[in-house]
């Protein structure tokens, strides 16, 4: 079947079997290998992408079901202005070692900060509770997200305070 969706701002149309999972559609059909394929059982969360601004586990989502929707992957985080503050936070605070869980962690973190610009540690822990990291012990991931949140708040304050 023909599947069309908007990925990171670009309209894409591709032939794929109805049984194609979104994670494989992104990686194998479109070459967007930033999204990682992990446990295949919706436990580990490395395959998290957004469908219409909502984080979903793309190993448990048919590409066909995303047809006509907006999908955002880790490749879509960076803008013309540079890296997303969440990406910067992961660099600044050593939010990754092997990097396997990182794309999913960052997509969930971005969605969280869009909803809640100043999340408590508890809220961050809950937000990423469906995602598994086997390297960092989560502390540096949480610090990375806090770093991004604090950077965004500072930017927001300085923009407000700047002369018109």
């Amino acid at each position, binding site marked *: *079947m023909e599947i069309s969706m908007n990925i990171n701002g670009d309209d894409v149309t591709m032939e794929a*079997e*109805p*049984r*194609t*999972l979104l994670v*494989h559609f992104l990686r194998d059909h479109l070459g967007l290998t930033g999204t990682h394929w992990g446990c*295949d*059982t*919706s*436990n580990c*969360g490395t395959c*998290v992408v957004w469908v219409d601004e*909502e*984080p*979903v*586990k793309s190993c*448990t*989502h*048919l590409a*066909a*079901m995303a*047809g006509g929707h907006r999908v955002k992957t880790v490749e879509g985080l960076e803008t013309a202005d540079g890296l997303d503050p969440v990406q910067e936070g992961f660099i600044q605070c050593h939010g990754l070692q092997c990097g396997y869980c990182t794309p999913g962690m960052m997509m*969930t973190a971005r969605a969280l900060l869009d909803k809640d610009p100043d999340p408590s540690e508890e809220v961050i822990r*809950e*937000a990423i*509770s*469906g*995602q598994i990291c086997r390297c960092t012990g989560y502390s540096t991931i949480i610090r990375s997200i806090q770093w991004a949140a604090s950077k965004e708040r500072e930017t927001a304050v300085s923009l407000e305070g700047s002369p018109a």
Partner: protein
Amino acid sequence: MQVPAPFEYERATSVDHAIALMERLGDEARVVAGGHSLIPMMKLRLAMPEYLIDINDLTEELQYIRFTEDEVRIGALTRHQQLLESDELAAVFPIFRDAEKVIADPVVRNRGTLGGSLCQADPSEDLSAVCDALNASCVIRNTGGDRVVEMHDFHRGPYETAVIEGEMLTEVRIPIRPNSSSAYHKVERRAGDWAVASAGAAVTMDGSVIADGRVGLCAVGPNLTNVQPISDALRGQAPSEELYATVGQIAADNANPATDTRGTAAYKTHLAKELTVRSLRKAVERATGQA
């Protein structure tokens, strides 16, 4: 790589369209909503439907939480996240927020639905016990119209419901009763896992006595979404620790868990008892304004 067996995909444009498709395609067709039970089953080839009917576009018809004077009506496509976040729902039925906090994880809750959970009828699934404790009923639609089935008759056993070929669950109706409240307690090995065991309780008070009480258990055996002997033991009784201990023992006596990687049968039986006590105590505290 786990990939489902081949199937044909159809996207429903209305509930009537979905039902017409199911009527035409017969028992080889399955409805997919959030897909977080069905797609894993398909990946393991435990389910191999020939046709998949996607109802995710039917938000207007199937995704809502509506309050009337004496009833809450929840559309089958309402997602876990919406059930968790609804302050109005938590105010009337706090058991929903108790349970939703510990169902799967936040990303899964963005997709999974109430209707999907009930129709999957997994004995470890939480919402069947929640809905049965609340004495809910289910609206099932077919080409002839709607029929309403009480939750207890809806849930026929592990992976079996009252929904037959050519039908779909469209709505869950829960009666609102004054002087009532509810609670849910679950023990899990780690965030997002299935329950080792869990128990949900709902009570309606009449002055200082329990007029009506219901307890549903999860993951400790089949057909325990409502434990009728517990309701019989609670009726007309004043709440006390002795009463809770008595019904906790009834829960343990009715539990029939299997030893597996989540725990031994003895441990799960103990949990059935203890979680029944805690849920009932909490429900009564809430109903009488002590919590």
